[in-house]
């Protein structure tokens, strides 16, 4: 019940905000803020309860199921496990920030804007909860269309191009996934005689391996375009740089994560043998993306485009981790999803704040911001450090876990991926140098952050440091789900990518004398 409540509240909140904006713009903003914060509050309570709960319980925390179109075996089936719970936390957290950050930025069509924003969030929430493939596809589309409008209506100078590019890429790949879903549906029906889209029933399907490869590629297409993986990444820099700040935040922080989530939730459990078969290619492409994204990020002069390419680079770690098929790497992937959402979102917010002040995203026209905006400088420093993977911040934990895990599977690729850390250093420091260091008189005398902006920044910084020093609650939450995801692969994996030594050698714990 709570689960459908999340989605419904966003949809209703969106309509209310739209209607309220006819009378009062501030009211519309408050309605959407309260909607998101309320949901955030509920999900935090859920999380705290879950953390205090018994470890031995099943991976699934909540389950909600209604028949929808029973004739075709379509159900309104939502379920929550640790992974979804973390994704919901991230969604609502970034959702609240995106409302806050567009408080001043959006001045025309405010009602429609908040309607779109909340409906995107509704779609994303649905994607993270849906356990019926038809419903999943439905929400996959729900999050796409309002996002398209967010980019095209409130975007920057070249937003039509970017919005259409984004739409066509995701839609085309989404259709491939639809075909694959239908294929899976009929294959399953052929074998068992029951027509169903239900995830848990399809998990048991025994698909002939030739068909399974094609079906998996259909799913994979949607997810790797969303992630994005080279060579399907080119929609991302355009969409990110043209979207309004909140749009970039949601794109980078959440929409990309739906791709990663799809890999974990569908590809690995449903098509385990095929996933193992393509793993070397998938990892190679991910590692190539790490380096390629970093080099491109280095050459950009548009700040938002630069940050967008860093996303391409960071998402390579997700490919590497998912296809390593071991606990450490997969936990690292979950961490990476969360920390990348926060740190990259933070960089986009930073770019948005600067854009509001000097009306350009061109870093050659920036410089010396530290003098006039020391608060922003300190935050920018922390975000850049997160992006280059400094220990003590969340991204380090994520990337290190992915790399340690990947090392169990492949040495060469892990070495190249680790070199990506040097490349990350180069582009991150370039951001700092071009934006905050140096001395440019044009940037003197700008106002430092307002209270609202400071609040957003402090929340982001604190959460990054918290994730860097105390990642264990997050890892504990996702552990049962990751176990379930991996159990299916561990048995079929003959190459022994899981090192038995790790399990046998117990680490000694010391207590001080």
């Amino acid at each position, binding site marked *: 019940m709570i689960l459908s409540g999340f989605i419904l509240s966003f949809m209703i909140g969106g309509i209310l905000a739209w209607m309220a904006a006819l009378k009062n713009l501030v009211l519309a903003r408050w309605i959407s803020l309260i909607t998101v914060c309320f949901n955030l509050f509920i999900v935090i309570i859920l999380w705290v309860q879950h953390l205090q709960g018994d470890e031995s319980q099943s991976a699934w925390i909540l389950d909600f199921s209604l028949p929808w179109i029973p004739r075709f075996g379509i159900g309104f089936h939502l379920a929550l496990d640790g992974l979804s719970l973390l994704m919901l936390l991230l969604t609502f957290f970034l959702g609240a920030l995106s409302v806050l950050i567009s408080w001043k930025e959006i001045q025309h069509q405010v009602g429609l804007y908040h309607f779109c924003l909340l409906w995107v969030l509704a779609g994303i929430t649905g994607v993270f909860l849906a356990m019926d493939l038809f419903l999943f596809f439905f929400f996959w589309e729900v999050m796409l269309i309002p996002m398209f409008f967010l980019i095209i209506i409130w975007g920057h100078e070249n937003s039509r191009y970017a919005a259409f590019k984004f739409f066509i890429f995701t839609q085309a790949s989404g259709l491939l996934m639809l075909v694959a879903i239908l294929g899976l549906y009929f294959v399953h029906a052929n074998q068992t005689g029951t027509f169903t889209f239900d995830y848990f029933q399809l998990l048991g399907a025994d698909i002939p391996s030739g068909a399974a490869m094609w079906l998996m590629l259909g799913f994979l297409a949607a997810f790797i375009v969303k992630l994005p993986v080279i060579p399907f990444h080119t929609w991302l820099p355009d969409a990110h740089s043209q979207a309004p700040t909140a749009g970039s935040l949601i794109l980078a922080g959440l929409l990309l994560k739906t791709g990663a989530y799809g890999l974990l939730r569908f590809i690995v459990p449903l098509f385990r043998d095929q996933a193992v078969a393509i793993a070397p290619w998938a990892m190679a492409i991910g590692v190539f993306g790490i380096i390629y994204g970093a080099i491109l990020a280095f050459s950009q002069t548009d700040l938002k485009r630069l940050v967008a390419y860093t996303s391409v680079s960071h998402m390579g770690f997700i490919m590497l981790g998912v296809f390593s098929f071991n606990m450490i790497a997969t936990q690292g992937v979950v961490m990476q999803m969360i920390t990348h959402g926060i740190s990259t979102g933070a960089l986009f917010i930073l770019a948005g704040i600067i854009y509001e002040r000097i009306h350009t995203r061109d870093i050659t026209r920036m410089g010396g911001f530290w003098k006039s905006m020391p608060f922003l400088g*300190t935050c920018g420093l922390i975000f850049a450090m997160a992006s280059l993977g400094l220990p003590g911040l969340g991204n380090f934990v994520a990337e290190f876990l992915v790399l340690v895990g990947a090392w169990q599977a492949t040495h060469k690729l892990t070495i190249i991926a680790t070199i990506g850390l040097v490349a990350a250093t180069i582009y991150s420091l370039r951001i700092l140098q071009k934006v905050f260091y140096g001395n440019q008189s044009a940037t003197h005398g700008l106002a430092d952050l307002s209270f609202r902006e400071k609040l957003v920044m402090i929340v982001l910084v604190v959460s990054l440091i918290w994730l860097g020093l105390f990642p264990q609650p997050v890892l504990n939450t996702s552990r049962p789900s990751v176990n379930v995801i991996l159990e299916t692969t561990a048995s079929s994996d003959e190459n022994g990518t899981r090192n038995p030594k790790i399990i046998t050698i117990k680490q000694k714990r010391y207590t001080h004398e």
Partner: protein
Amino acid sequence: MNDLLWLIPALPFLGSIILILAGTRLSKKSVPLIGVGSVGVSALITLLIGYDFISSDTPPVIKQVLWNWIDVAGFSPSIALHLDSLSLVFIFVITFIGFLIHVYSSEFMVDDDGYARFFAYLNLFVGSMLILVLADNLLLLYFGWEGVGLCSYLLIGFWYQEEKNGYAARKAFIMTRVGDTAMAIGLFMIFKTFGTLNITDIQLQAPVMWEIGATEGTIIAFLLLGGAVGKSAQLPLQTWLPDAMAGPSPVSALIHAATMVTAGVYLITRMHVVFELAPTAQFVVGVIGSVTLLIAGFSALTQYDLKRVLAYSTISQLGYMFLALGVGAWSAAIFHFMIHAFFKALLFLAAGAVIMALHHEHDMFKMGGLRKKLPVIYWTFLIGAASLAALPLITAGFFSKDQILWLAWAGEKGNVWFFLVALSGAFITAVYTFRMVFLTFFGEEKSHVTHIPGSFINIPLIILAILSTLAGFIELPHSFGHFQLFTNFLNPLLPATTLQSEIESTEWMIQVSAAALSIGGTLLAYYLYVKRPSLHAQFKSAVPQLHNFLLHGWRFDSLYDWVFVKPFVYLAAINKNDFVDWPYNALVNVASFIHRMFAFTQSGILRWYLIGVVLGAILILTLGLML
């Protein structure tokens, strides 16, 4: 008392957080109170714990688990501290020299806008460095390792408005990160091999798992060496250190002389078990050390900038420490680290005071005659320089360097080449050190003294000068009293160096030759720069290429520029618009071309359409009739 261990790194972190948050709102008086105070209290706690440590009969190993950092499927490093005699030496040096440098900075930086920011960074550095040396596992060590790298970046670029400072800062960060990457890969390998990153466990398991010279152990040792080489500015990653002098002088003293750059020495010493199992890697450590000490020494001979001389000298002295590590003289390396920390911090601080007194003049050839104007600085600088040049008997540097020379010759892993390199290095050191002294303090006065340093600058200098002299007497060589307090202190942890059997009583010969060379170097410097100052100018104009080659640090910068930087920048520049986008754009272009073709037929003129209809009808009729 030992439960307070966590406070040692925590206090500087706390100070840093307060300074960052409150920053500009604090008064000029309360900033140093927090900044200096936090490190001061840390130093006090170190003293208390150190007293406990020494006074107990069996040296204890203190472990303190603060919290579980990560725990995933057997990968479970904690945030846990580990104190043994090696870390005690390091935290002692870090907190005490750190404290003195903080005191010095409270006067040195007082007129700077970023006063609070400076202390925030400095405290952050001290905290990270303490974490590095107190870490119980390699991941936490890596945490501190990267943390000090960040602080080094921030402090080199402290005066961020200058473009070249930002460049130097980035260079330092990126070059050390190259080494760190090797080290990270080493950590992956270690974890895969041992299933843990806990240092004690690794030390216990390594000899069981590997025999001497095992491939895996050698690879791991080389990877760790990569990290050490980056941080300690050894060949081939040494070029960042001279540029790092762009930072304020206290930073150079603390980070780029006394503490951070010795992290590599610490890492190798900490993992000495692994290196002893990998003789190839250990030999390479020695080779890197000896080559670096010569290269850097020659470069130091030609520099103009006072601080750059000291930077090259630091690289060279770190080379000595690596050489010592390479021959298995673990405690000698750590002893030289400690003595070097004293005198090099002293030299940097004194140089900073000189530069401030002359209103930011860095060029030694524009200084001179400061002996009378700045007497305290002159005398302390002279003591530091004597220690660096290892003038015999009266300086601490003599005793620490002598130990390395002796073990390079007599140690089981030593050989005559290592020894000769170290010996000639001693001569070069003496020459460039006294070149610096004579150019700066002797001769005629060329610049006007604008600022006389106050007591907050003088007192740390005097304390360091005393330490640079007296600290040597805690470790005396065999032929000279044989009093080995320091080695014995470290002994349970670090094994003593085994000597080659046939070498017995040549130690005094080595001491005499080393002493003769350092005195000879001093005299040569006196002859060249005081007696006949025209001679070195003649030399410079006789072989300008050689002079420039040495001046620019053997042109390593140009080499890296051509091999790495330029290709990378070129690659990035030509691909700015992302060639992966081309096929997609091509698709778009094809579609819109077809679109234009069809749009052309829709002319809007009615009669064209009619003709179309008629022609179409005729076509269909013809086809119908033909078939």
